[in-house]
């Protein structure tokens, strides 16, 4: 019963996300709508915690303020959606498929896989309703502090707490759990279990539905591969933040890629991508690296585009006026799209900033650091070797499949061959690939400077960091290397 009630409490946030995504992304295909549904669910849950954080600051932890704010946001978005509907800009969110054998078989296989994954998730969860070590040490613990401490909720961020409890970690997950607990008046483990399941199936659903816009077979295969990664299922059942973070990174990457392919509303897609990366940063400190990577790579590509356009402008100075005006217009569009991405990421980033500046105690990664120590670590080449070896070993065992998945996927990419990319796509795919690569480099840099014993740190986190990027990497691989016609 408390699972159903938790779902009801989260429903306004889920619906707000669905309406927001439908307003911003005007894809009316069947698969596109499914994709927008899963995207909206995840983004809605995440964005609602930004409101939740400010309601925590204003009204405290045990009030229903966060729930009422979600309802108010839903009302505003519903009004906007209805106005757009009356103008004929959006259509009711009904999904219609023309079923045929080509769709039915992959869907059936995916459905069976999803049912098996759900059974696995439930069997672990029923035996371990409080999740695993990281859940009771960080995410569910923080929610418990906020819920139980009442007026003294700021105790949750006391610098007297042992570093193992990571009181400086962002609050997306604890605030979602708190939202359900506050409304139910009970700190039931069913709420974090439900949230973990929602993010697991939203990640798989988003990956599958996005690829299904081009072909259901490749979509089902990608979805099944993600569901069949035993370690990914474990992490979901452990109620830790890695699966939600992987959802937001996947969403950001996918929206960025789509902005390069779409013919209309490209700024809207980039705003949603900014929101997704902002929420990734608001989920976990690791997500801050993916946000920085996305912004840095985006800024680099933007600068290159602007330089190209400036060069073209100089060359066309002597040309007829329309060519000159066209160049200026294109440069303006590029800048306005970058501004849209920044605008989308601003709410979660601002929330994170307020949290880090005014509430969070210093994190263990910085508190245990000295400049001399950092310089010494940077010059220690054995650390580079250890990190590279650990990351490669974990890449080999990625997801803990019965066979190493990376070589299998490389063979798949080789056999499928790279498809011919459109001009706009090349830039967005380069941005996506570089963002994942720079994030990985960022993880390497954090290991390099860690104040903790390096082998211990690598042993307990390297596989999870790689899995955070896995759904997005899988999506990119299928987008680049498999053409509809090859099947």
């Amino acid at each position, binding site marked *: 019963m408390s699972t159903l009630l938790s779902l009801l409490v989260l429903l306004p946030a889920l619906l707000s996300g669905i309406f927001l995504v439908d307003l911003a992304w005007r894809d009316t295909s069947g698969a596109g709508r499914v994709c927008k549904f899963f995207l909206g669910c995840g983004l809605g849950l995440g964005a609602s915690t930004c409101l939740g954080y400010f309601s925590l600051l204003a009204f405290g932890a045990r009030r229903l303020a966060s729930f009422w704010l979600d309802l108010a946001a839903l009302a505003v978005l519903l009004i906007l959606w209805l106005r757009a509907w009356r103008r004929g800009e959006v259509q009711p969110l009904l999904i219609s498929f023309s079923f045929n054998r080509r769709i039915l078989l992959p869907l059936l*296989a995916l459905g069976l*896989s999803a049912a*098996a*994954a759900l*059974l*696995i998730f439930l*069997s*672990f969860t*029923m*035996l*371990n*309703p*409080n999740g695993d*070590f990281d859940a*009771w*040490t960080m995410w*569910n*613990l923080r929610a*418990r*502090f906020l819920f*139980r*401490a009442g007026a*003294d909720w700021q*105790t*949750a961020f*006391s610098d*007297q*707490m*042992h570093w*193992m*409890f990571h009181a400086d970690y962002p609050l997306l997950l604890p605030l979602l759990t708190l939202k359900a607990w506050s409304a139910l008046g009970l700190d039931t483990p069913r709420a974090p279990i439900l949230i973990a399941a929602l993010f697991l199936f939203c990640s798989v659903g988003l990956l599958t539905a996005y690829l299904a816009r081009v072909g259901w*077979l*490749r979509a089902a*295969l990608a979805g*099944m*591969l993600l*569901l*069949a*990664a*035993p370690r990914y*299922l474990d992490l979901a059942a452990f109620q830790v933040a890695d699966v939600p973070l992987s959802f937001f990174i996947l969403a950001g990457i996918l929206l960025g890629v789509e902005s390069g392919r779409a013919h209309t509303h490209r700024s809207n897609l980039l705003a949603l991508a900014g929101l997704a990366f902002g929420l990734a940063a608001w989920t976990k400190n690791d997500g801050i690296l993916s946000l920085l990577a996305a912004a840095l790579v985006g800024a680099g590509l933007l600068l290159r585009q602007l330089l190209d356009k400036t060069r073209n402008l100089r060359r066309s100075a002597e040309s007829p006026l329309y060519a000159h005006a066209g160049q200026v217009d294109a440069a303006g569009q590029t800048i306005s799209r970058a501004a849209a991405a920044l605008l989308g990421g601003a709410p979660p980033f601002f929330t994170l900033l307020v949290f880090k500046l005014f509430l969070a105690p210093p994190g263990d990664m910085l508190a245990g650091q000295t400049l001399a120590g950092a310089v010494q670590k940077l010059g220690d080449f054995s650390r580079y070797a250890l990190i590279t070896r650990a990351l490669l070993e974990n890449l080999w065992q990625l997801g803990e*499949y*019965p*066979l190493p*998945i990376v070589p*299998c*996927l490389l*063979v*798949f990419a080789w*056999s*499928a*061959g790279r498809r011919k990319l459109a001009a706009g796509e090349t830039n967005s795919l380069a941005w996506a690939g570089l963002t994942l690569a720079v994030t990985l480099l960022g993880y390497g840099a954090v290991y390099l400077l860690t104040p903790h014993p390096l082998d211990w740190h690598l042993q307990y986190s390297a596989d999870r960091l790689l899995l955070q990027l896995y759904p997005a990497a899988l999506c990119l691989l299928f987008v680049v290397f*498999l053409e509809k016609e*090859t*099947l």
Partner: protein
Amino acid sequence: MAQIKRWVTRLVIGALLILAFVSLGQKLLWAQRIWNSAALSQDQATLWEQRLARLKRDLAGKGAVIGYVSEIDVGMPNSLIDTNTEFTLTQYVLAPIIIQRGVTAQWVIGNFGGVGFKPEFGSQLGVSLAEDYGYGIVLLRRNAP
């Protein structure tokens, strides 16, 4: 050549599908193996919650920060479970009280597993026994104010 490549692609996709099914099948078998209806409510956190239920009641009004000592603090052999898992579980169960390693707080939880609390631990740590809850869990009071 294009035809051959298409067949290779189909073969690889088939192999990946089989890999996905085998992986899920193995994990399902694992789930079936670990499943035991008698083990419901027997997870570490729930058991620790039950073990500390009386202590939790007794800690009401004894301050926002409580100390914590275990085998490692008295030089006894210890494992990662003693030093990390049980400490974090204690914090999880007793939240919103902050559990701090050491004896700087007025009240201190002792967790000495199988050996239980021994009087020499008290003199070593500068604490005296206030209550024994069994399972090696004790509530200690710091001797010096």
